[in-house]
Every structure is written in structure tokens, then in C-alpha cells.
């Protein structure tokens, strides 16, 4: 035990790992405290699996040091390390028909001497963890006859049977149903609450952001961000690590951190497009235009409208009126200014009322007008025909389409 390591489960200093001349890990420095649930994220080939395998001593690294609970991984007997840290591999392909209980009992290997057989205590521990992962009911079923979910839970029980303070999970939810995905993370949450430390390499960023107390983002063998979920999942990090444009926001319905990403496309010349919508009619269209890389503006919207939230999330300019009032002269003019400057104006499939009728009037100033008509305008008119009148006039010089075909027009 080295002093100064109290309270830390893992300390990694200047770790390098390479295969032949390929540097897989470069100068990794990482300290993980006891009781943390850390999500290791990053694109494919970032080095997440390699890092986990270095921590539990499967890969012998070139430079640097790794301490697990104060023990130098490289210089400690492998059975002793296996009593401190366990790893659940990403793909475990078992081709021989061992019954589940035998697989779980292999987790007891680091505690047994060469000629020792598993005691009833070992069986008790194995069964305890099988009942926790709900696999006790098929303890004598061969693992080769199991579904992916069943086998994964058996392997999870095996990792738990190793009874280590530090648990490493490499993509534990790959190839699992969503119900099991949630379950595995709930187990992790409970383990951490009981004082264990868990590091989980995970692809699903939504699961990671929901359950992990800390995220470590890797790219090309380096840690590029490390911290709380909100600190790591920023649009900038999304763009450097994954090469995608991302929008990070708080989901209004679930209250959770949510994000929307799409692949960055370079060299697209964006048009100026103004969207007239409201009541949720503009959101999908705004997203679509954002993806195409157009310069989008919208208005006039009223506070509380979900289209306004959408505009916020995607960071586009919006003309916003005061609540429960009609559109004042000031906002009307602002809106018309946007419309006049835009290469294209889109009138969404929105309901018309007294409050927003001036948006229709503003549309008349458009250079090019596209009307999205998913439902007949009659059914959306709440102004006793007044709006319909304007609509018909607009329709004469506009291209009329549906949301599904909008991309053809643009």
C-alpha cells in the first residue's frame, strides 16, 4: 500500500500503451475516487477497451504507472490483482456448454489455491449474485443455450462473484434489449451506493449521462475531457470527439439532459431561410434546415411555444412577442425585415388565430414562399375565414408542398 492513495480506487500516471508502432494510449492521467460511477465514452477505436484491460493487468503497458487500491498493477501477482479489480469483457464467446453456475464460479478462482475445490461458501456467494442478477433459475442451464441477455447477466454475476472493490464493465449493454440496458445501469448504481467503484465503457451517451456521476471522454488514445456530465457533453466536445454537430438541452418531458446530433457536413452553402410557424409546427422543419446547414430564422413566436424552445436549442434567431398579446407593430416589422432578407420563407402547417394572423400578412413580403400544407387550411382556421382569405392569396404565388416532400423544394 502506498501512502497518499487513500480514497482513490484507481490512479493512472503517464500511461502509454502501444502495439508495434501504433500508440493506442497516450499519456493517460486519471484518478478515480472510491464510490464513483464513471462512464468511459468516446468513438470507436478511442482506446476505451485498451484502457480497461490495462487497469486490470491484462495488457502490460509500456510506460507509466497504474495503481488499483494502492497496488502497482504491473508488479503485483495476477491473482492478488484479480481480488481487487474485475472486468466484464465486451464479447465473451463461450463455445463449450458449461452450466451457468460453473461460469459464475470461475469468479472465485482468485480466492482458491491450486488443489482447493470450491467450498460451499463459494457456491453460496455465486448463488447470491446469481439471484441478484435474476439468473439463479437457470443455474444448471448450459450457457451455450442462453439468449444474449441471459448470458450477459450470468457473466455479470460472475464479475460480482469475484467480489472486488473496483468493477470494470466494457460495453455491458451491447446487444441487449433496452430493458436489460436499464437494468445493468441500475445494478451499477446500487453497487456504487454500496461503496464499490464502477468504470463502464459505454456507447449510449444518454444512458451514460443519466446514470454516471462522471464522464471521461477519450479520442485517439487520449483523454480529451473529464468531469461532470454537463461539463463533458458540450457541443464543442461532440464536435472534436465524434465529428458531429450537437445540440445539448434539457429534455422538457423527462427533465434529463438530452442531445441531438448529426454528422458535420462541410462545404455546403447555406441559404437564408425564414420559418413562420408556431404550436410545434416549425420544430421538425427547423431541425431539417439546421441539418442542411442553412441560416435559419423564425418568428413571430410566443413565449411557451415548443417551436421557440426548438429555436433556442438549435441557436437560431427568433422574433418573440409578449405573451397573450397579438403581434404588435414592432414585432411585425422585425419579422418582415427577416422575411425580406431571406432567400426563402416557409409557412408551416400551423393553426391560425387572431393572435398570429399578422404572421400571415408578413408572409406576403417573401421573395420566395413555400407553404407546407399537411392538413387543409380550413381545418386550421380559427378566425372565421379571415385568415383563410389571406392564405388563399398567398397560395397563388407560393409553392405548396407537404412536410415529407419539403426537402425536394429546398
Amino acid at each position, binding site marked *: 500500500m502506498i501512502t497518499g492513495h487513500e480514497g482513490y480506487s484507481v490512479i493512472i500516471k503517464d500511461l502509454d500503451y502501444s502495439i508495434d508502432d501504433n500508440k493506442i494510449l497516450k499519456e493517460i492521467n486519471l484518478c478515480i475516487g472510491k464510490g464513483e460511477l464513471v462512464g468511459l465514452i468516446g468513438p470507436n477505436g478511442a482506446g476505451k477497451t485498451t484502457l480497461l*484491460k490495462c487497469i*486490470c*493487468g*491484462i495488457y502490460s503497458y509500456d510506460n507509466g504507472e497504474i495503481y488499483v487500491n494502492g497496488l502497482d498493477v504491473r508488479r503485483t*501477482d*495476477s*491473482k*492478488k*490483482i*484479480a*481480488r481487487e479489480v*474485475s*472486468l466484464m*469483457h465486451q464479447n*465473451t*464467446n*463461450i*463455445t*463449450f*456448454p*458449461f*452450466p451457468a*453456475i*460453473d*461460469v459464475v464460479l*470461475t*469468479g472465485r*478462482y*482468485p480466492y*482458491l489455491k*491450486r*488443489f482447493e475445490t*470450491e467450498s*460451499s*461458501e463459494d*457456491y*453460496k456467494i455465486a*448463488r447470491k449474485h446469481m439471484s441478484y442478477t435474476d439468473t439463479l433459475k437457470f*443455474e*444448471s442451464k448450459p450457457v*451455450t443455450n442462453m439468449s444474449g441477455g441471459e448470458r450477459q447477466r450470468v457473466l455479470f454475476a460472475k464479475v460480482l462473484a*469475484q467480489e472486488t472493490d473496483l468493477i470494470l464493465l466494457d460495453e455491458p449493454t451491447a446487444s441487449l434489449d433496452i430493458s436489460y440496458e436499464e437494468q445493468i445501469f441500475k445494478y451499477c448504481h446500487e453497487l456504487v451506493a454500496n461503496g464499490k467503484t464502477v468504470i463502464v465503457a459505454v456507447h449510449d451517451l444518454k444512458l451514460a449521462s443519466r446514470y454516471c456521476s462522471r464522464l471521461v471522454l477519450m479520442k485517439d488514445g487520449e483523454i480529451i475531457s473529464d468531469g461532470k456530465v454537463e461539463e463533458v457533453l458540450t457541443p464543442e466536445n461532440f464536435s472534436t470527439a465524434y465529428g458531429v454537430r450537437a445540440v445539448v438541452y434539457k429534455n422538457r418531458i423527462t427533465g434529463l439532459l438530452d442531445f441531438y446530433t448529426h454528422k458535420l457536413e462541410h462545404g455546403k452553402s447555406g441559404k437564408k431561410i425564414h420559418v413562420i410557424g408556431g404550436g410545434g409546427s416549425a420544430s421538425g422543419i427547423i431541425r431539417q434546415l439546421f441539418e442542411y446547414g442553412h441560416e435559419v430564422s423564425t418568428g413571430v413566436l410566443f413565449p411557451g411555444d415548443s417551436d421557440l424552445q426548438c429555436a433556442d436549442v438549435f441557436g437560431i434567431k427568433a422574433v418573440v412577442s409578449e405573451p397573450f398579446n397579438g403581434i404588435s407593430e414592432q414585432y411585425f416589422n422585425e419579422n418582415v425585415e427577416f422575411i425580406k432578407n431571406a432567400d426563402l420563407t416557409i409557412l408551416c402547417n400551423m393553426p391560425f388565430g387572431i393572435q398570429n394572423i399578422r404572421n400571415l400578412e408578413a408572409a406576403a413580403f417573401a421573395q420566395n414562399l413555400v407553404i407546407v400544407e399537411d392538413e387543409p387550411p380550413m381545418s386550421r382556421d380559427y378566425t372565421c375565414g379571415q385568415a383563410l382569405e389571406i392564405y388563399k392569396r398567398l397560395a397563388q404565388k407560393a409553392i405548396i408542398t407537404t412536410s415529407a416532400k419539403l426537402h425536394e423544394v429546398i
Partner: protein
Amino acid sequence: MGNKPKHNSTKKIVLPVMLGVLALVLVLATAIGAVYVPFGETARIILKNIGILKNTAFHEGHEEIIFYVRFPGVLVAALVGAGLATSGTVMQGMFRNPMADPGILGVSSGAGLGAVIAIALGLNSKSIFFLPVFAAIGALAASYTVFRLSKRGGKIPVLTLVLSGIAVSMFLGAMTSIALTTIHGDQIKEYLFWTTGGLTARRWEHVAMAVIPIIACIAMILAYSRDLNILLLGEEEAQAVGLNSTKTRKILLVLTSITTAAAVSVSGNISFVGLIVPHIMRLIVGPDHRILIPVSAVGGSIFLVVCDLIARVIPNPRGIGVGIITSLIGAPYFLFLLVRTRKGGDAI
């Protein structure tokens, strides 16, 4: 809670039953021959000579035939069968490949070259010890070469091991062919007799040569049976529970080489025992090596003693090599496995 599962106890009766069958087969194989000795008398002769029975009388001359001519041959068959089947079980487990057998290590071809050298130098006619010793040296040298060639940075990857095994075997086979062109008629017959698995004319000296390495190695392999189970789950799965897989595999490779070399040196090349016996036994007791290894060892003994008996009773003036019988049974079984695998089912 805390009880061991039931399936272990039902499988435990397999071993005693097979040991009983082995005892019966040993006596039966000794009793049957050109001169028929009744089963009971055979049993009494064996028991008397190993010091269990006293004061029994036999038909004149039977004691010589049974205890000094036939019984050593049967015992060699049993030892060789146990050794080859155990090695095969370990190979299949270690490589996670149901088609693996001890031949991959180049042991057989090395032993063949050793044997042909002993014959070419005319040593075989001077003492019966030369041929087995040369064969054993050839076998161990071949497998050592295969290990050295396939070592990559302290590890022995399966693919390079298999490929080096094939290359070394080919090379040694060519050397053997060259050596064969230098020897004359009678010596070629001697070689042919050895290479098809000669268990006739085995004496107590042969038993003495094989018994210690084979029994000792099987015992040591048994001590590693749990490690083998864990290796079956995969190299990295094994390392994650603290098993030093590289070291374990090296030890197991050395043990199986010695076992196979000891077996081949006293019996010649006997193919397919190491391949089919572990398969049959795995079907009966499952993949747990703690049961599979002892059961395969006993099963290999029974199989080879029976094959040897068949080889002896087939009328043929010069006798027929037991390796021919095992191949006649083994090759169709091997094809059966292939067909079954191709149909999409597991071969095991």
C-alpha cells in the same frame, strides 16, 4: 443454499463404472489370443503375479503366455490410450477447437524421424530400447522447435502454433522420406510396422519406460483441470480472474508433449485416439475438465485395448497394426463430425 449442484454427483458414477469396464477389458484382451486361456484363469494369473492371490495352480505354460507375453502388451495399450486421450482433451480445451489433437505439436512426425534413424543405424536389432528412446528424443525435439518458432513476445498464439506445427511436421516428414530411401527391405518393414502402431511384442521393459512419464503427466494435468476450464472461456476472460494464461498454456503444452512423446515412443503412431475419445466423453460428462480428464484417460485405455484386441484377432500372418484399426474407426467418425458441423449444429 450452499449445496453443490446435483449434476456433479450423477456424473461421478461414470468414472467408477468405466474403471470396472477397463479391468474387464484388460483381462479379456489378455485371455484372447492364439492360445485361448479361460477368463477366470487369466484373472487369477494376473492377480497372482501382482501379489494379490497366492497358492493357485494354472495350466502349464499359461502363466508365461499371459503374464510375460500378452499382459505387458495390453498394459502398454492401456497406458498409450490414456496418454493420447488425455493429451487430446487438453489440446481441444486449450485451443478451444474440437478438431485439435496432439499431432499439431509435431510430436508424431518427430517421433517418426527418430524411429527411422534408429532403424537406419541398425540399432533396433541390437536392443529394444534404442527405437523408443530415439522416437522420444525426436518427438520432444520437434515439439520444442514448434514452441520456439511460434513464440511471439513471450506468448504462444494459437494460429502461429498450429502453422509452425504443420510446417515442422512437413519438414520432418520429408527428412523421414529421405532417411527411408537409404535403408533396405527388412528395415523398411520394421519402420512400417512401427509407424502403423505396433503393440505386439511389447514387453515389461516398454511398460516401465512409459508408465512413469504418462501417469505423472496425467496427474499434473489433472492439477490444472480447473485452469483449463477457465481457459475455455477465453484467454482474456482467464486473465481477468487472475489466471496467468501464458504460463499455464506453456506448462500444459510441455506436459502434453511429454505424454504424447512417451506414448508414441513405445507404440508408434496411433492416430485418432486423441481426437475421438475426448469427443465421446464430452458428450457423456460435459465440458468440465475435472471430470472429463480422468474419464477420457480411462476411456482412451479401453478404446485402445479393444482396438488392439481387434487387430490381434483379425487373421493376418504378420499381424495388423493397431493404428490401422483406430484409423479405420476414427476416420469415418471424423467425417461424421465434419458433416454434422456443416449442417449447422455444434460438433460437440
